[in-house]
């Protein structure tokens, strides 16, 4: 859980604490479908997924973005998060274990806000990239 964090304590190159999620189960796809209202059968129905040429169901991209969001807010308090974006780079399948990592790429003062920018990445156990992205947070100063 995120503790107070200050702009002065963060340096370009610092790593975000890693988050490991999974292994994913089909049941979690069903839970996510219900919670999110995204009932695209590609995520829950193997017969449907096979009919469109996959070897079975794939996870919702937004579930993986949710994992990345969890990794961010376990490090940076929610109220400091200003921007968060991802590109969905690969399909996640049941059995995959997802590791989210990130690092600080920029610090800048923008008006009266002290912004850190980080790049984030979610990969499976084979190193295959599922999501790449970035976020910006406006952090408080110590002084």
């Amino acid at each position, binding site marked *: 859980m995120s503790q107070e964090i200050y702009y002065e304590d963060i340096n370009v190159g610092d790593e975000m604490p890693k988050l490991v999620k999974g292994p994913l189960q089909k049941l979690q796809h069903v839970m996510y479908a*219900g*919670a999110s209202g995204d009932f695209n059968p590609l995520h829950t129905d193997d017969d449907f997924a096979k009919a469109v040429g996959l070897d079975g169901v794939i996870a919702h*991209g*937004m579930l993986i973005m*949710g994992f990345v969001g969890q990794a961010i*807010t376990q490090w940076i308090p929610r*109220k400091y998060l200003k921007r968060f974006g*991802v590109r969905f780079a690969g399909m996640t399948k049941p059995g995959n274990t997802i590791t989210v990592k990130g690092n600080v790429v920029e610090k800048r003062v923008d008006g009266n806000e002290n912004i850190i920018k980080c790049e984030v990445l979610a990969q499976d156990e084979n190193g295959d990239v599922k999501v790449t992205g970035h976020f910006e947070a406006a952090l408080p100063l110590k002084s």
Partner: protein
Amino acid sequence: MAVDRKFIGKEYGPMTYEVCKEKIKEYARAIKNEDPHYLDEEFATRSKYGGIIAPPTFAVIYSGQLAMPFFMDPELNLDFAMLVHGEQEFEFYDIVRPGDVITTQGKIANIENKEKVDVISLDAYSRNQEGKLVCKAVYTFVIRKS
């Protein structure tokens, strides 16, 4: 069939969503995120937020409602079987809490016709019951051409 660029600027919504703490908990449990800011009322009440808050990606629940009329728009006639979620962006302006009534309005921001795919992006602006912008979301979908 390429998606016609004349639909750039087409509007969807407004659609309204009332945030409730049970939905926030259901969402956090589906992610398997055990952060007590989302799940534990006693902890959350003692936190700097003074109560349960929505996780950042909960924005897809209130603002993503716009996806339905967009996907189902007979004029656009999207090939849903060929469509994938390509990118997702959020800009956050305020914390969302249980009891907030969020109204989202959106428009097609861009349509690019590329050789093998069309790329279409939808901007969605979500405001709370006080009219304050809480989140701008950009949904980008990639549609393979059959």
